[in-house]
């Protein structure tokens, strides 16, 4: 390359006040390969740009250096101008002689010399620049939404309403997620079912949405715009087209005493069941682990009673393959269960329950029709203790974070209790009340001031049973830490919100990263909260961290917009400043030795394996290959590659070395 043009800008007086622009233009004009050089008052102005374009044409320039302000400001401007004049935009570079020179140094020779140096660096660099084409990737305008809680529902509806297709995959027999288990919701005490059910129905009926319940994602291949997904549809032992959802089978099934997951063990269900009355789809599945037929080989009562002959005992799992251009992760969260709190007797005393169990007790459609009755003997508890931060903010137990939602739902629980048991006394043991949301603090105050809930600032040490009462030993730190004991009838633990059990495996399946708590990781905590590090995969709701409904919904709509933006074009255009693995003729093929160190550091999983095969199909060599669709151009791989087989456009080894040499050898 030898016909380079240099354009030195005065920026009014911003540059020329300390830098001798004419001199810079003159000196750099003498550099080898520079065909044309000039200085001008305002390069970015229309006349300035016209000057640039005309020079390109007139002098047949094959490279341009604009010495002006920061490229972060005007690089796009000048590259566009170049393109308009028929020069490949990636053959245009900028020298920053304003922010990095004229504004920070005094008017003297040294400053002008520095400006010359900076221009020289770019002149040398641009000689090594290559004409690049923007990368174009086709887009499949279908979104896959994994998880059918409120977040998944919101995201799916938003995307579908933009006119795009959506495939929703839900692990359980019905969508709805945790929200379907809630009674009323803070801070307004809306009935959860009332606001959720219409949306669930909308999902089932939306022409753009295909719903796969009782299904899981088995594998994800491909990249942004072009994912290929395998979905395992678990057998429901049912022909869904024939089943009318009459429910006769579920009433006749002799297996009636299976603990009901939806009621969190506070009720029972049969072996063929619909998880809850408002389920979508409202058709049963057979729980094979508990069905007499699958265990003992006989029964088939359901088959006999079914008026439409819909039962299929020999139905097998089905694996389907779908294509999608974007994926929304909305698999939600879980709460800590089990023997995690031996000091609180959780799992040992029937009347020590968790928050979700309390939701079921408070729910009008729950096992007690909304009456607060304790599980052990059905009595109405007159004294109830809520324990906040149960497991959260507890490094000794491995969870350091605040679960964020429990302060609010605990306040809600105390309030609901008080509304239902007027003569009851609720206590809340808490450490801090975290109520940072719209109308949240007001809500908590209402619980305390209007409903008379006793908030005690202190953590409970232990709970034990004594003559049918639960003795709760706590302390009041606002009284200096004096120990207090409460004889309660029931205790509700606000157990920590945690990542779903299979979250880690799922993250690996779809190739996204997760944090040390196994929640999915966002691309940037502030500015890319719904993006993941994998292009084309987005996050919605509590799979990212514990979130309440407003936040989950907001994130879901955010993710949906990202998907819609992605789908707004038929092709994706991306900056071509990406990494490439070098290729050579046989028998070397490439300097790459296939160590895949690069793969291990790439934050975007952009490096793939490529097999070079002989005619007979034998693998001759395995190389790294950069997936242009995924690479974001960070260059970490380049720094790592021992054989320098991988390089990056725009910041190639050659370009960088040239810059260094030009800078230091004047």
């Amino acid at each position, binding site marked *: 390359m030898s016909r380079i043009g240099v354009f030195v800008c005065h920026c009014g007086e911003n540059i020329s006040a300390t830098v001798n622009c004419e001199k810079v233009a003159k000196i750099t004009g003498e550099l080898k390969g520079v065909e044309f050089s000039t200085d001008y008052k305002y390069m970015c102005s229309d006349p300035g740009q016209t000057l640039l374009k005309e020079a390109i044409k007139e002098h047949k320039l094959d490279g341009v250096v604009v010495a002006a302000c*920061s*490229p*972060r400001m005007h690089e796009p401007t000048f590259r566009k101008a170049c393109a308009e004049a028929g020069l490949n935009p990636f053959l245009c570079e900028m020298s*920053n002689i*304003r*922010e*990095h*020179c004229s*504004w*920070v*140094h*005094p008017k003297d020779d*040294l*400053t002008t*010399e*520095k400006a010359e*140096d*900076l221009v020289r*660096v770019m002149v040398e660099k641009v000689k090594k620049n290559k004409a690049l084409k923007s990368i174009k990737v086709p887009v499949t305008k279908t979104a896959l939404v994994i998880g059918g809680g409120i977040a998944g529902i919101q995201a799916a509806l938003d995307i579908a309403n933009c006119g795009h297709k959506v495939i929703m995959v839900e692990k359980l027999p019905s969508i709805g997620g945790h929200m379907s288990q809630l009674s009323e919701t803070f801070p307004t005490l809306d009935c959860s079912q009332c606001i959720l059910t219409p949306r669930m129905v909308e999902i089932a009926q939306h022409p753009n949405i295909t719903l796969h319940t009782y299904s899981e994602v088995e594998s994800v291949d491909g990249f942004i715009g072009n994912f290929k997904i395998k979905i395992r549809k678990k057998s429901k032992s049912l022909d869904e087209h024939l089943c009318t959802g009459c429910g006769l089978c579920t009433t006749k099934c002799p297996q009636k005493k299976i603990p009901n997951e939806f009621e969190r063990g506070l009720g029972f269900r049969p072996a063929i069941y619909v998880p809850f009355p408002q389920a979508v789809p409202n058709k049963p599945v057979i729980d094979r682990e508990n069905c007499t037929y699958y265990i003992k080989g006989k029964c088939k009562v359901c088959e006999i009673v079914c008026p439409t002959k819909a039962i299929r005992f020999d139905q097998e799992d089905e694996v389907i393959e779908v294509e999608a251009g974007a994926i929304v992760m909305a698999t939600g969260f879980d709460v800590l269960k089990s023997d995690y709190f031996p000091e609180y007797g959780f799992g040992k005393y029937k009347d020590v329950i968790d928050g979700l169990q309390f939701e079921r007790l408070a729910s009008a459609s729950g096992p007690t029709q909304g009456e607060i009755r304790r599980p052990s003997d059905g009595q109405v508890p007159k004294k109830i203790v809520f324990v906040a931060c149960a497991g959260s903010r507890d490094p000794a137990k491995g969870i350091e974070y605040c679960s964020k939602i429990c302060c609010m739902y605990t306040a809600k629980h105390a309030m609901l209790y008080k509304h239902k048991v007027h003569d009851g006394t609720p206590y809340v043991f808490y450490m801090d009340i975290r109520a940072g949301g719209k109308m949240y603090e007001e809500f908590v105050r209402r619980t305390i001031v209007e409903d008379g809930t006793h908030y005690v600032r202190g953590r409970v040490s232990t709970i034990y049973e004594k003559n049918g009462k639960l003795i709760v030993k706590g302390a009041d730190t606002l009284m200096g830490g004096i120990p207090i004991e409460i004889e309660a009838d029931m205790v509700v633990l606000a157990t920590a919100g945690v990542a779903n059990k299979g979250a880690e495996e799922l993250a690996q399946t779809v190739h996204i*990263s997760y944090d040390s708590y196994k929640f999915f990781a966002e*691309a*940037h*905590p502030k500015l890319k909260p719904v993006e993941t*590090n994998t292009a084309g995969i987005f996050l919605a709701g509590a799979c990212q961290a514990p979130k309440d409904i407003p936040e989950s919904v907001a994130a879901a709509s955010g993710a949906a917009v990202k998907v819609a933006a992605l789908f707004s074009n038929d092709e994706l255009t991306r900056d071509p*400043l990406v990494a490439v693995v070098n290729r050579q003729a046989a028998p070397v093929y490439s300097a790459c030795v296939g160590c895949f*160190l690069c793969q291990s*550091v790439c*934050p*975007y999983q952009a490096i793939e394996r490529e097999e070079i095969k002989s005619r007979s199909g034998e693998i001759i060599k395995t190389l790294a290959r950069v997936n242009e669709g995924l690479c*974001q*151009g*960070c*260059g*970490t791989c*380049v*720094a*790592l*590659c*021992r*054989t*320098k087989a991988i390089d*990056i456009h*725009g*910041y190639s*080894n050659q370009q*960088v*070395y040239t*810059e*260094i*040499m030009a*800078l*230091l*050898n004047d």
Partner: protein
Amino acid sequence: MQDFEPKIVAFVCNWCTYAGADLTGTSRIKYSANVKIIRFPCTGRIDFMILMKAFENGADGIIVSGCHPNDCHYSTGNFHARRRWIVFRNLLNFTGIDTDRIQFSWVSAAEGFKWADVVNNCTKKIKELGPYENYNKIAVSTLFNEEGTSNE
């Protein structure tokens, strides 16, 4: 040594420190003209061959600066850079390269003042150390022949 003007190269990432240095300019904060910036997408791109090239071509000092931990535009690039540095520092010391002449820092896009400080402190320090004349090319070439160019 009075009129020794050291040559210092700064390798900075595009998203934090380059932008921070822009802010130094916008805020008209003055610093010494000895330091010249070369832009990288991320500190994760900067390998030791690059640092060596700078010394080889007569740099007296080097600044490497990027985003604060956890703020990396590419989420982990600066961690890799840091880890690489930790591994290599000993090796460089061992081969006689003056690691005092390499300064690492974190400068965010909002830290215009800090960038000026980093530059001025580095310039002062390198002035005290004097020109880097002992740079040993032989040692470096052996180093890279044996160890490859970089490692994590």
